[in-house]
């Protein structure tokens, strides 16, 4: 490949790249987010941009989209140097972006959202008819199924994403940036998106695909550029590489993608759930129905299922965040069905919540304050109602060191400024260090990169080996298969099957998850009789 800097003066047409970013450097106070990064996007290819959290992917894309100005380096469009001062410049160059958090007006219809900012008007009146035709044509051409008249807040996340994609296509963009598009999707929706992306590339669109999920890269990308800690590591053809190689490049050391674990040695029953029901907040019917199971000490029980089948509601009832409709929960021999969150915590329940920003952390508190979130009132940390700052700091420093939680200013860092992976590590450090018998971990690795996932998986196995009971809820089947000792599949609020991960496969689980099959479990009848 040619790296002669004078090339662009002559080779405007001959450039093989629709976008080339050369030597991009962007510095923020205290951190070089991008350090001399090169990215070359070919016409009609799907190009993955891989890196851990904080590797500089988002910064690089913000530079391309005109949100930041690079300190050094240049951007070329079809070999011609361009200057992108703001997103309008980017749009003019045919660059469109689907952000990780969608930028949609919730109370507008899908059609209105698509044309917003690019409306055709006549005498100041909207000409929606033409727009509708164009949107419907595009949606048919690329298989992007939408209902143009549905209100955005009523539609699924998948359809919201398709709306975002149509927004780009409506503006005739031919360079499409997808920022972590699969983070919010269910496995089915991910598959659908992959097909859409392939279709778009086949039509000559060039796609930049930001992700840290290796399986997706292997599935759709043609090439992959890897960044690590703001530095350019390399670009590889996905056909010539393996998941292992990519993850090693991304993390900078050898990563165990599959955690090794010994045979489980289940002990006494720690958690026992009997005929649990949880009422829906919106409808009359129960969202969790007749759920019964046990979790023993020293085993990892995993609840698998497609998102929205009652897992969240079940966990909220189990951990005391929402009231139980009917049934019984026994933890360590004590009935906790109606116990408060704090009492459950006293009785040995640790909880890694599904949404770390909503439940897990107080973002404007410092790291040390978050580390004692459930323990601040214990004599160790207070003296006649006054916080013992030195003890809190000492305790937090210990956890930070033990669990390698990285942050700008150590224990005093505001949690909001930390990366997602380190925020999750902080929660895990806090929950594992509390005195507990049962660990409830809900999607503990969601949105994290392989390095952090490896760490968390190892910690969970360590917990199990230390004789604790672990209840894991996960939407990622890979995680379910590698980590659990026993799998329970939840469908529409019911446990429809129980499996040994060694004696089943992903396809079978998928059938149960989709509700196509169910075990006529004798267990249910047994517990009904109780």
């Amino acid at each position, binding site marked *: 490949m040619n790296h002669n800097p004078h090339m662009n003066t002559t080779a405007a047409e001959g450039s093989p790249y629709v976008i080339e970013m050369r030597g991009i450097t962007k510095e923020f106070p205290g951190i070089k987010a991008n350090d001399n990064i090169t990215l070359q996007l070919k016409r009609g290819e799907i190009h993955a941009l891989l890196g851990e959290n904080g590797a500089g992917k988002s910064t690089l894309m913000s530079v391309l989209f005109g949100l930041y100005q690079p300190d050094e380096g240049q951007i070329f469009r079809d070999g011609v140097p361009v200057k992108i001062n703001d997103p309008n410049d980017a749009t003019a160059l045919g660059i469109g972006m689907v952000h990780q958090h969608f930028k949609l007006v919730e109370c507008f219809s899908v059609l209105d959202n698509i044309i917003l900012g690019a409306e055709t008007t006549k005498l100041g009146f909207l000409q929606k008819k033409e727009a509708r035709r164009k949107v419907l044509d595009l949606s048919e051409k690329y298989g992007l199924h939408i209902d143009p008249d549905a209100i955005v807040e009523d539609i699924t996340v998948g359809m919201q994403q398709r709306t975002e994609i149509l927004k780009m296509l409506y503006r005739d963009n031919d360079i499409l940036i997808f920022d972590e598009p699969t983070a919010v999707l269910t496995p089915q929706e991910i598959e659908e998106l992959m097909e859409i992306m392939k279709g778009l590339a086949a039509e000559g669109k060039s796609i930049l695909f930001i992700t840290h999920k290796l399986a997706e890269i292997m599935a759709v990308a043609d090439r992959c550029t890897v960044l690590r800690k703001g530095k350019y590591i390399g670009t590889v053809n996905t056909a010539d590489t393996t998941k292992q190689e990519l993850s090693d490049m991304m993390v900078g050391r050898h990563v165990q993608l599959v955690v090794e674990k010994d045979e489980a040695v289940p002990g006494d029953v720690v958690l026992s759930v009997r005929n649990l029901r949880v009422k829906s907040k919106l409808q009359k019917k129960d969202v969790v129905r007749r759920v019964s199971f046990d979790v023993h000490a020293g085993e990892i029980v995993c609840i698998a299922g497609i998102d929205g089948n009652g897992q969240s509601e079940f966990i909220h009832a189990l951990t005391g965040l929402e009231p139980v409709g009917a049934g019984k929960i026994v933890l360590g021999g004590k009935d906790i069905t109606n116990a408060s969150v*704090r009492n459950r915590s006293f009785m040995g329940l640790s909880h890694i919540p599904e949404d770390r920003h909503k439940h897990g952390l107080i973002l404007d508190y*410092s790291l040390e304050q978050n580390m004692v979130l459930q323990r601040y009132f214990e004599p160790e940390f*207070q003296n006649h109602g*006054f916080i013992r700052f030195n003890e809190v700091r000492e305790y937090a420093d210990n956890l930070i060191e033990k669990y390698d939680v990285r942050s*700008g200013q150590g224990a005093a860092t505001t949690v*909001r400024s930390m990366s997602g992976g380190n925020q999750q590590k902080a929660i895990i450090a806090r929950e594992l260090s509390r005195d507990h018998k049962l660990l409830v971990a809900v999607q503990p690795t969601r949105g994290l990169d392989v390095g952090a996932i490896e760490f968390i998986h190892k910690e969970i196995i360590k917990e199990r080996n230390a004789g604790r009971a672990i209840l894991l809820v996960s939407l990622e089947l890979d995680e379910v298969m590698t980590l659990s000792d026993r799998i329970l599949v939840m469908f529409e609020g019911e446990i429809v099957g129980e499996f040994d991960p060694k004696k089943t496969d992903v396809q079978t689980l998928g059938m149960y998850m989709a509700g196509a099959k169910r075990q006529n479990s004798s267990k249910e009848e047994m517990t009904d009789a109780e």
Partner: protein
Amino acid sequence: MRNDKKITVSERTSAPMLNEQPKNGGINGFFAKEGTQSVLASLVCISAGLIIGFIVMLLISAFAERMSIADAFSGLAILVCGPFSSGSLNYITTNFGDMIFYAAPLILTGLSVAIAFKTGLFNIGAPGQFLMGTAGSLYVALSIDSRESGTGVAVWLLALLVGMICGMVWGAIPGLFKAFFGVNEVIVCIMTNWIAANLVSWFFSEKTNLINTGYGKSGYLITTEMTGNSTPKIGLDKVFSGSYIDSGIFIAAAVAVIIYIVLNKTIFGYELKACGNNRNAARYAGMNEKRNIILSMAIAGCLAALGGAVYYLNPGIEFAFSSAYSKLPDYGFNGIPVALLASNNPVGVIFSGIFLRYLGQGGDNLTSAGFNRYIADIIIALIIYFAGFSKLIRDLINKKRQMSMKKTKAAEDNSGAKKDREA
């Protein structure tokens, strides 16, 4: 290093990059400090407010009859000089004393709003709580005559206490509705404000005959001077002769410090702020968020009520009970700008309360230059408005600092060899 200080810094929500401390001190190091930037940003807000206020006065003086441009300048001088703006030396001390006196209730209502903000609640019910505090304390102070028994201070303390309890109950009502029925506290606060206003008017009216109002002006209560239960002046009236000043300012300042300690050093404050920052996480952590909402509103009510008590227990201040139902007291609402200007920092509230009163005091003297006193209100409003931009101003300061740092750095090394990385 002790960590107490760090905790207070961390509660301010600032971009992490602002905390970066360059190794070399000097002028850049000075501007890198968050405190410097906050103060600078406030000064910019205040100057901008004054400049626009001055422009308003210029326009008025240019177009009004019998006024000249020179009046605008004297108007500005009066505003900036505040209590020192007019009259003989004697009058200045009076003015200064009055400023301090009027600032005390303002600080207390400011604290009331600030502590509710910290818990994520908007206490717009301070006027009602202020009135309840006024009613409770005046009822005690005016119904017991201590001039002969000499129990004035004890009755005064009792009056303060009763006033605070009244406000506490009044403040807890919106808290209860919020906690148990999910009703927005703003709505209940507004309703309780008017209920309080009418209740207080009725409470002291001739029909109930609870207090003999006959010796006062028609429609006004007698003052605490008549019963000898006034707030002690502890000699301040000798220093600031002719002013209303009493020891209320010390109460306000002490309460501000106590609130600061409670919020930042105690587990109770930790819980309150946790509920304010993230209610879901507070519940996840096993905190009783309902209790915290009610307590926070009760404390807020207690503080606003203390403001009313401190104000009206002064021997010189008359309470116009018969018109109380038609107008909510300004002190209640003015607590909101006081809290905003101090970014809800309890110690900052002391200064912002005094500062806003300082402008108000200047405003009261504006008539001598031919202007309406509400010019001061315009300027206060502008300053609050600009305070909304304080983050922008801080960012500008930062940008400028970085640019000057970069220039020096670029001079040091000007070679940047580019490497080809791709094979």
